[in-house]
Structures are given as C-alpha cells and as structure tokens.
C-alpha cells in the first residue's frame, strides 16, 4: 500500500474502493455501482446543504440582518418573499412567483446583456477590423466561407437539385463528418486522460507501485 496514514490513508482507501466499484460497471456489476451512485447523490446533497448554510444563508443573510437589522430593508423584503413562497403554499401564485421571477429575470438580463456587450460586439469588431490581412488570412477566410457553404448545402433536403448541387451537398456532408470525427478524436483523447488518471491513482497512490 501507499504508506499513507490517518485521514489521508482512509480517504485514499475510500476513493480507491469507489473507483474500483465504478470501474466494475465496465464488467457489468451494476448493483454495487448503483449503490455508489446513491452514495454519491447523498454526499452531494449533504454537501450542497452544508454549503448553502455555511456560505450563503448564515454569512449573507443571517449575519448582516443580525448586525444591522435596520439598515437592510431590501434583505428583509427578499427573505420575506422567499420564505413566504416556500413556506406558504396557499398564497396566490401571483405572490409566490415573485422571487423566482426576479431571480430568473435578473439572470436572463445579466446573461443577455453580457452576451451582447462581452461577446457579440467585441467578436464582430475583431472579425471586421483586421489590420494585418495577409495571403494566409485571406486564403483561410475564403476556405472557411467555402466549407461553411458546402456544409449548409449538405442540409438541403427535398429540393430538386442537379449534379453540381448534389455533388456539393455530398462533399459538405463528408466535410461535416470529418469535422465531427476530428472533434470526437479530441474528446476520446481527453476522456482517455481521465481513465488513465484513475488507473494511475489505483496503481500509484493506492497500491504505491512505481513510486
């Protein structure tokens, strides 16, 4: 074994057992794998509750309200709305929907505003303003336009088309397949890194081999 003692040793042992159980799913051992999923779900739920209490409710709501109750009217109002929505199901939906509506609306507004100001405008600007246009850039952009056009033609179904359009559509589909294949290759490599990491953990950190 790895020689780790105390809490580190126990944590490594638990992690090793969990890893073996999950890898056991490869061999068709679904029952223990199912238990590990339940264990994981329980741990995650407990962790989220703990996080909500220790890092959100207490420091951001309870403490400010306790320290200066008169200064945080907005916090009283928000807490009252949330508590009433969660704890009084007999309230009309118009009232109980207010906190959720505010949360969803605010998030949507931030996300939409950010997408326009942070992504669309700067990206359009960066695409339009190219002070260093050289032959390579021009060829790359032309190739991108051609490939995009061919892939789009590949999606044309049902419309009457001649030999040229049919050939272009076929080429577009093959280009798309090539792109997806390349991307899946990237993902395969990425996931292999994760699998090898788990095997390395079992062999090195747990069994202490090769160290």
């Amino acid at each position: 074994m790895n020689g780790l003692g105390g809490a580190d040793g126990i944590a490594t042992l638990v992690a090793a057992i969990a890893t073996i159980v999950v890898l056991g799913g490869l061999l068709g051992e679904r029952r223990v794998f199912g238990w590990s999923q339940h264990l994981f779900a329980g741990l995650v739920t407990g962790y989220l509750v703990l996080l909500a209490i220790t890092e959100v409710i207490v420091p951001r709501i309870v403490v400010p309200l306790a320290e200066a109750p008169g200064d945080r009217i907005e916090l009283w109002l928000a807490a009252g709305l949330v508590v009433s929505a969660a704890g009084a199901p007999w309230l009309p939906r118009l009232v109980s929907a207010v906190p959720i509506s505010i949360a969803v609306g605010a998030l949507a507004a931030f996300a939409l505003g950010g997408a326009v100001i942070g992504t669309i405008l700067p990206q359009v600007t960066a695409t339009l303003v190219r002070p260093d246009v050289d032959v390579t850039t021009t060829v790359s952009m032309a190739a991108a336009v051609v490939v995009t056009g061919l892939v789009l033609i590949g999606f044309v179904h049902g419309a009457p088309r001649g030999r040229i359009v049919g050939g272009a559509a076929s080429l577009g589909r093959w280009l798309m397949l090539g792109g997806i294949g390349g991307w899946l290759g990237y993902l395969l490599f990425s996931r292999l890194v994760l699998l090898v990491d788990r095997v390395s953990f079992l062999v090195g950190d747990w069994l202490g081999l090769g160290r």
Partner: protein
Amino acid sequence: MNDRVTRFAAPLLLLAALAAGVLVSSDLDIADPDPEAVDELQAVLSGLEDGTAVLVGFDPDVGTYAEVRPTVRTLIAELAGRGMDISMVSLTPEGRALALAERDRAERLAPDAPAVADLGFVPGAEAALVTVASAIAGTSEVATPTGTAALDGIGLIVVVGGNDLGPRSWVEQVLPRIDAVPVIAITPISLLPEVEPYRQSGQLAAVIATPRDGAAYRLAADLGPYADLGDAGGGPAALAIVIGLLAAIAWLGEILVRRIAPALAARPERDRS
C-alpha cells in the same frame, strides 16, 4: 460463452494493460510542442510585477478536472514562485469543493509558501460575477467566509474552466466592467471551440487547453522555490494513452466490421439472384 468472455475479459485486459502502461512509461510529453499558447501565457506572467494580486476563478468540472489538474497545480506553483498574492473564488458548488481541496493540498505540501486567500463561494451565477467585477473595479467589496474583501488591486485573473461559469462568462460579465486586467484561462480541450474566439480577439490574454497545451506548459514552466506545489508527475502516462487509443480503434473497428459483414455477406446472394 464467447460473448460473456469478451464482455468480462476485454475490460479487464484493458485495465491491466493501462496499469502496465502507467507503471512502465513516463508522463505524456510533446516532442515538438506548439509554443504559441505557452508563449502568450509567459508573456502575460512576465509583464507582472512580483507581488501582483492574482484572482483565480476556480470553477472546473468534477468530471474533467483530472485533465486540467496537473496544469492548474503547475500554474499555481509558478505564480507562488513569482511571489504573486493569490486569491481563489468559486461561483459553483463543485468548483468550491475542488478549490478547498487544492488549498488544503497547497498548505500541506508547501507550508512556507504564501497562503492562497480564500474568497469562498459566491452564489448567484452571472449576478455573482457582476459582484466580483464590481469588487475588482473598486465600487464594492465581495463577501467572503471571514468577512469582506476588496479586490481593486487585482492585476491578473486566472479562470480555471470546465463548468457553466467558465472563461466565456468571465469575459461577458467581468471584462466589460473592469479596466485592462488580463484574463487567462485553463480549460479542458472540450471547451476549446468556445474559448478560442476570445483568445483570437484578445479578450483572453492566453488560453491553455489541456492536455496538449498543458503538457507544453508543464515542460516550460519555471516553478521556482515551490516546485512541490506543481504536479510534475501528474501528467497522463504516454504508453497508457497509446494503449487506450489502440483499444478504442480496435473497438470501433470491431463495430464497423460487425455492421459491414452482413451487407458483404448478402451481396453475392443478391448478385446471384
């Protein structure tokens, strides 16, 4: 019988082969690494003075964290070695859990290194990012587990991505609200199509997409006095990766043959008829 043997033996053989590959091979290395991403990162780091405050937005995905972990640890070791004042903030629960684990590890392995300040978990998704941006801009403070923190002296933002609130969210919510603080990102390769446009437009000063750029960066990094914080042996074993790739190709080939074989077998009958 054959099916059962294949179903049980093939995964066992694969795991055994991967274990053997892990034992006998060295870390994934790149014979001719593409220096562009690493050069961009080093240029950003070189432009910072010692003691610069660095904010690490730590929100990787638990599922893919193993892919970015060695690179993240190496970067933190390099930042600590350069005397940077590092703070960590998380906007997702799983990012918070991983950030705590990394802080514990750093304190355990390099107790004499400057402590990584814990800014905790800021709830609210995009709204939380706006709060952080306001703190960086100096118009407010961000609540931490131990009180509040001002972030107006931040000179570099490092985003460890993989989750919903990754580099794109930081670019969209934080960059428009602050002045000229470079943002660099470490992400798994699956996020590369999402972050590459931001790198090309200059909104992200550097992007290290693992495992490719991560391996190149780990080769080039200057870890200084806190090399223990880095994860020198944390990269994937090269031989194990090759074995895994060969197994995947063999598996896909077997599926292809199984699908094509009936068609090929049916063809002579069709021809005869």
